[in-house]
């Protein structure tokens, strides 16, 4: 539904030129919820805005549906108002001089296709009901709460029934509680409508809970693309492991290839999953999530690593205890049940299942 090939975007700011997107390829399938995830300045919003036509890339091709909207090779640039898209902005961009009804009716009134005023009324009502804003038609837009404005923006983006919905951090201006509720509602809605969605966020939780596919971006490039399970469970890159969730990193060198393979680290030899095609002697980083580290209890399984260390710090987090255990010169973090019987200064043995330890190229 959305194909992007070799996209490059540069733009000017007061502080000089920014090379925001440096060669992006992606393919969003019909009905998919596709998320661009990354830290600020990684080029995710610029990519989204290029799909909307709000940025002018200097290289690349973009196809939305079956319409080529950008082709620098063939000198095609379709302006935003001729693209079959709906978009929700980070600020919601609700026009303050119009009421709720007029905000939603705007895309219909500006459409190439003429709508009768009856049809406009029906469609606006339907769109507002969809986002639970029915009955607020005559409310002046500035008199809406943040959550209502967000839903109004969504209704405005959907009213024309576009083939593609673009969402630019639509939840970042809501408070934490509302954000959590809205996450599910929003995914439900777009899934029900079957609309192809391109979503931009810097919030990993949003990305993991809402998406079918996540593309993690850094410095204008996609570093890993996959399902939420793949992105969280099998990061292929130190950046991804670091950006999504908490991770422990153990630097080392491959000692023996195989599945599991062995990696020699200052904290000892670790049995772990190795990346494809790696050779012995190559530098790697072993990544392990804090929740995958257990305290030793009973017999050690065949595919487990055991490290010995001393508890340096315990932080009570409410739903968990976070321990920092010094293993050699390295601090390893682990997440325990809050009732775990641990104390600062205890010497403990850590169990790291080999299947949860993943080596990535350093």
């Amino acid at each position, binding site marked *: 539904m959305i194909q992007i090939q070799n996209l490059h975007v540069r733009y000017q700011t007061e502080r000089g030129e920014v090379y925001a997107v440096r060669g992006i390829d992606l393919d969003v399938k019909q009905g998919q919820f596709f998320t661009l995830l990354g830290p600020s300045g990684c080029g995710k919003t610029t990519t989204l805005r290029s799909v909307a036509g709000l940025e002018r890339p200097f290289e690349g091709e973009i196809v939305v549906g079956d319409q080529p909207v950008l082709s620098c090779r063939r000198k095609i640039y379709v302006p935003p108002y001729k693209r079959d898209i709906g978009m929700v902005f980070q600020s919601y961009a609700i026009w*303050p001089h119009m009421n709720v009804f007029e905000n939603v009716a705007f895309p219909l009134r500006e459409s190439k296709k003429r709508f009768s005023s009856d049809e406009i009324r029906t469609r606006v009502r339907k769109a507002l009901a969809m986002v639970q804003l029915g009955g607020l038609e005559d409310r002046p837009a500035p008199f809406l709460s943040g959550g209502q404005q967000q839903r109004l923006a969504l209704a405005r983006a959907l009213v024309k029934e576009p083939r593609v919905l673009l969402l630019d951090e639509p939840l970042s201006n809501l408070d934490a509680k509302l954000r959590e509720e809205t996450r599910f509602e929003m995914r439900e809605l777009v899934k029900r409508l079957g609309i192809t969605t391109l979503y931009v966020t810097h919030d990993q939780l949003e990305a993991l809970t809402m998406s079918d596919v996540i593309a993690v971006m850094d410095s204008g490039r996609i570093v890993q693309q996959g399902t939420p399970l793949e992105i969280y469970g099998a990061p292929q890159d130190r950046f991804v492991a670091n950006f999504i969730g908490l991770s422990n990193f153990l630097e080392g060198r491959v000692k023996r290839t195989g599945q599991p393979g062995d990696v020699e680290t200052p904290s000892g030899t670790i049995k772990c999953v190795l990346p494809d095609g790696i050779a012995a002697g190559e530098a790697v980083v072993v990544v392990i999530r804090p929740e995958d580290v257990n305290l030793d209890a009973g017999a050690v399984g065949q595919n487990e690593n055991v490290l010995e260390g001393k508890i340096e710090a315990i932080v009570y987090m409410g739903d968990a205890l976070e321990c920092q255990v010094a293993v050699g010169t390295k601090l390893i973090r682990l997440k325990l049940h809050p009732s775990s019987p641990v104390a600062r200064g205890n010497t403990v043995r850590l169990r790291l299942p080999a299947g949860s330890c993943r080596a990535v190229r350093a």
Partner: protein
Amino acid sequence: MVGESLRHHLWQHGIFLLILFLVLAPLSFLILGSFSTARLPGDFSLDKMGLVNYLKVYTDPGTYELFTNTVIYVAGSALVGISLAVSLAWLVERTNMPGKIFLYAGVPMTLAVPGMLQAMAWVLLLSPRIGFINQLLKDLFGPDAPVIDVYSLGGMIFLEGLRLVPTAFLMLVPLMRSMDPSLEEAAAVSGARPLSTLRKVTLRLLAPALVAVMIYQAMTALEVFEIPGILGLPAGIYVFSTKIYAIVRTATFMPVYGQANALAMVYLFIAVGTTFLYTRMIGRAERYTIITGKGYRPRQLDLGKWKIPALACALLFLFLSIMLPFLVFLYASFLPYLQAPSWNVFKIMTLKNYRLLAEYGEVASALKNTVLMVGATATATVVLSFIVSFIVIRSKFWGRKLLDQMAFMPHAIPGIVMGIAFFWLFLKLDFLPLYGTIWAISIGFTISFLAYGTRSMNAALLQIHKELEEAAYVSGAPPWRTMWRIFVPLLMPTLMGVWIWVVLHAVRIAGMPLMLYEGPKNQVLAILIWNMWDEGYVPAVAAIGTLLMLVLLALTVAVRLLGFRRQATQVVGG
């Protein structure tokens, strides 16, 4: 994509070239004319060029007197203006003086009184022979009583000083209001008494802003033609603006246009220099970040037994600035012939002057000309400023920075210089049927007001979140529809505000129209008043002036109300 982008930006290039032409063409003619040795602009040719005009101007001892007069007049009125404005702003913002509402409402109203009329009113009060006050002094103390002569540098300084107050007051009030009170509280807990806190902390912190405001006032005083025109010309006291006017318009011998241009060049350089200084000072003032943007109310000094005297002084300013000129005009407009107030006068008062206005054909035609000229100027300024600001703020047009500077440049050009420049331009571009029409005046004003218009629009456009515009594009609205349905309604208060501001100014400025004046065909109200005053029809001038002041007052109230509404919607929207 070059071809495509050129097509896309065709209208932007069009506006760019238009502004470039409108600003640079008159200036080039001004410069060329200053080197012209031909006697008349019509005889101008590139063979007859030389430095004669500059030599004449530089060797004329009158030029140095002119220079001294201008410096004394500008510095004096700026000093009077800033002292009054600071005192008033301090009284309303930082003390517990009662009746502040009179000042908040009244001071901006003084903007409504045209300088020309204010000066004329003071002539009626303080002219050595006919001035009411001087006559009163003679009645009280005999024929040898000292007279106060308003036809003097002192008179000009006093009056221009009064006129500089409202703008400076409006600039200073927000500064005083939003100043972080903890800076002063820190001085207080360090043991400083209230007055030494005021002197050592408050005023020091405000100093850069005060200097900037003062330079702004100096720019205004330098530019003004009407006050020195009414008060200085009859006594032969010239400043730059009136001297140039005198060379071109009132010389008994053949006017020497080239010399007027050469003098205008000197004048222009001084004005541009002052403007440059002002923009530099603004940059420096911003470095003192005493304003943190939080809405707090600074502590107010208890005036104690000085409360009532302070209010009396503040009200005296309002009386001298608005009430007195208005009362003088109202009184004179009912007189069959000019005389000082006495009990007998009330018996012979008449409406004859008002009736005369209705019958006198020139008034009707001047009124029609004024309405057309002012309406065209205000509309053109609003539309042009909007488009220029839109390109400057919202487009990626390559020349947007330059366009912005071009639009701001006329701000530094005094009205008289603009007038003489356009005089040359329209005279030489005789294929355009503009010379001697009200449209010539309209074009001149539009360029002059473009600086104000674009500054207001730039600020307003920056307030509009970019995503409000982009949301319209992705909703299917092409650029011109976006402009119409998003920008115009959102900017309506600014568009209206600029429109009324331009009307208020275009109606009362006499300097530039006088330079372009040719006869009844392009006579506007300001020129008519000027001419009638010159010819001595004082009661008739008083009748027109009274009516004009009432209209301008109503418009000023409208601007204030619009301003309040804008603030209200910003609060709701924000």
